[in-house]
């Protein structure tokens, strides 16, 4: 198969170059299939090559003012090819595309000895513009395959070699080749991610990750910085170091221009840390944002994890999640224990709740939500008391104890007294007669509650609107060019108009004090 593939590739390249001289009989040749990995690599070569040639031609702007963006887009389009690649495919592609003379450490990718084809008419065409990129890409693919095959030491080794390769390229880069420098950033991020997943020595890697994160920030390498931040948070959370994770979170800023998937992960980790530290409101908003931004067709595992945590945080805040949430496609089985727990919380019966939790204990421990669920005891009591207050105007304390699953009327008395103090319900206890009397329900529209609820929603809509306006980006250079042209006209007329940007900046300065 190898020889045939090499031959086919040579034929395809030959076709492309000789297209003007093509005779009819050549055109009738059936279309040959280029192996997908190599096709993808050739596409990248074309894109990056176009950029490099236009860089020398400085007068014309090319579309690719951002090589990192090119590589990112290319990575997503080639994910189909990379998802199906095997170790052999990688080896072949490496042999076909990478020039042995200039490529260091080619032996990492090439598994079998060099294959010679008998009728090797045209010399293999090696990549020039995209050589390092494709090499590191192939390294990351191979690392992923090895990790999936549980060969973690080899995967770790490959990732480290890849990162080293990128680092040396970056160091040797001069200004004229700045294009190739930033185009390596997304690949660097990938290698770090596989390294973090594959490694088992978490503590040692933490120091390296922190250093690499700093350097990435200095280089304005948004992809690597975001990826490393998420990897570090994941590592700390897996070792239950909540306080340290919180410190990391508070000392670092997540870059705004990072990819959506990294943002989703970051929001999930922030939400988890906040839930563990009892900051339920901010945790809830982070987790719901993460779910909203998550891809709808894929990433089912991530969405399940986020949804699970969201349900738990909602329960901890005292709200009952809606029933349809538990029946979302693909999540029904995963969320089943949480449905049972939600039902127990709604009933308000402490004894039933304890029973359900102890039955589901192993499942919850596997999901790492057991500690959070154990905090729900007082929410159960609150929910139960509220139900009773709404349905009865007067209820004997013994009945309260029975319905809430408490031990005695005396205990029920204490619990109700505490609830009244906490503002959960509005009632008076009559100990002699042994009942609790709830006060008439206050007309809620006479209080500030509706205004507060409206304000929360309005603030959210306004923030979304402002974010959307800020996110409307024009290619900044093109805009400025037009602006220069129009301002040139205006200047001749003698006015002094500020640009929209400057006006907006002024407004923001004024308003910053209010916020």
């Amino acid at each position, binding site marked *: 198969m190898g020889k045939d593939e090499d031959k086919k590739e040579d034929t395809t390249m030959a076709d492309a170059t000789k297209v003007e001289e093509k005779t009819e009989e050549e055109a009738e040749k059936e279309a040959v299939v280029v192996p997908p990995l190599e096709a993808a690599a050739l596409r990248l070569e074309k894109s990056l090559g176009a950029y490099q040639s236009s860089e020398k031609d400085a007068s014309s702007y090319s579309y690719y003012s951002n090589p990192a963006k090119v590589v990112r887009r290319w990575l997503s389009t080639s994910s189909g090819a990379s998802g199906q690649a095997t170790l052999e495919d990688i080896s072949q592609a490496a042999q076909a595309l990478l020039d042995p003379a200039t490529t260091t450490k080619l032996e990492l990718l090439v598994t079998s000895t060099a294959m010679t084809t008998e009728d090797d008419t045209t010399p293999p065409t090696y990549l020039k513009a995209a050589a390092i990129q494709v090499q590191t890409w192939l390294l990351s693919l191979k690392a992923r395959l090895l990790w999936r095959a549980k060969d973690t030491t080899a995967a770790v080794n490959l990732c480290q070699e890849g990162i080293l390769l990128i680092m040396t390229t970056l160091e040797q880069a001069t200004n004229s080749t700045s294009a190739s420098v930033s185009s390596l950033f997304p690949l660097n991020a990938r290698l770090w991610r596989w390294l973090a997943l594959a490694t088992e020595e978490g503590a040692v890697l933490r120091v390296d990750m922190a250093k690499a994160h700093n350097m990435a920030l200095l280089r304005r390498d948004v992809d690597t910085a975001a990826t490393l931040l998420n990897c570090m948070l994941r590592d700390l959370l897996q070792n239950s170091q909540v306080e340290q994770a919180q410190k990391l979170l508070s000392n670092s800023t997540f870059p705004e221009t990072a990819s959506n998937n990294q943002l989703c992960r970051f929001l999930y980790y922030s939400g988890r840390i906040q839930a563990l530290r009892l900051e339920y409101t901010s945790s809830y908003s982070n987790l719901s944002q993460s779910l909203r931004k998550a891809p709808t067709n894929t990433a089912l595992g991530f969405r399940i994890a986020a949804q699970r945590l969201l349900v738990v945080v909602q329960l901890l805040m005292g709200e009952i999640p809606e029933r349809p949430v538990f029946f979302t496609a693909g999540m029904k089985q995963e969320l089943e224990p949480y449905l049972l727990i939600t039902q127990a919380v709604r009933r308000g019966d402490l004894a039933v709740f304890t029973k359900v939790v102890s039955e589901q204990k192993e499942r919850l421990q596997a999901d790492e939500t057991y500690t959070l669920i154990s905090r729900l005891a007082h929410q159960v009591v609150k929910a139960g008391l509220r139900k009773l207050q709404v349905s009865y105007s007067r209820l004997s304390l013994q009945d309260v104890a029975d319905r809430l699953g408490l031990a005695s009327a005396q205990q029920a008395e204490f*619990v109700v007294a505490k609830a009244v*103090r906490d503002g959960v319900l509005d009632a008076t206890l009559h100990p002699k007669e042994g009942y609790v009397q709830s006060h008439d329900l206050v007309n809620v529209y006479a209080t500030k509650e509706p205004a507060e609820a409206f304000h929360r929603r309005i603030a959210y809509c306004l923030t979304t609107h402002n974010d959307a306006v800020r996110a409307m980006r024009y290619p900044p250079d093109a805009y400025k060019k037009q602006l220069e042209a129009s301002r040139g006209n205006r200047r001749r007329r003698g006015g002094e108009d500020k640009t929209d940007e400057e006006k907006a900046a002024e407004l923001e300065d004024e308003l910053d004090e209010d916020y």
Partner: protein
Amino acid sequence: SPYYHHHYIMSSLNDIVSQLETCVTNQDVDSGKSLLPQVKVSFLTAPEHTALAAQGLECGALLTLMEGDLEAFSRLVALLLPYYHNNQGASSTTTAKQHLIVGLHLMQLLVEHRLSEFHALLEILNEKLVSTEACLSYPVGLERQLMVGLYDEIMSTPIPHASYQFFVNHYLEQTVRDNIADGMEVSYQELTVSEAAQRMKFATLPELQSYVQEHRPDWIWMENPGSEAVLSFAPVDTTVTAADIGADDWIQQSLQYATEMERIV
């Protein structure tokens, strides 16, 4: 020679630690305190003796509790916690007193109301241990009881170790009593003094009286000739004043809406 030096330190450290253990048993705080600095130095400087030094530090921690010095206790615990975490291995126990010290630290966090640290520490601890070790399950259960309001359970649960008595005496009784009193004040209109005393776990009426005079000046102690005295709680002031409208918030919100609308339009 270094071998002799190492041996010398080892044996003297051994002596010190055993002396500390005796101090703990005899509740001899002062002599324990004088031995402690040497143990601290060995803990920090001699890595091969950390296991032994850790035991010494634990004794020191127990002694500080006997004296009631919570700050010194915190400092020693801050040294010990990372040691436990790094040297746990498969057995999850490094020294005999590990669970006791961790449990006491949890109690400290609870009474100082540092709840997020309390829960963060719980995350790190092994699940099974927390449910089986009495030293650890006591603070966890206590937190639950305080949150739900099961004050009678608190008073009846036995403490797992004598050193917990410090927290119970100085903080718990007071906290629980204050909580119960707060609850009583808003949920009852009046109570007979004997009932009040029973709920707040006062043994005698004069105790209740002194508590009311000291901490609850707004409660009214009404003597009823012929029957029991009654404790009446001052009615909640329901008159609404201008300040209650909370106009500041609304003004600020409306101003925000106005500026945002101007931006859009």
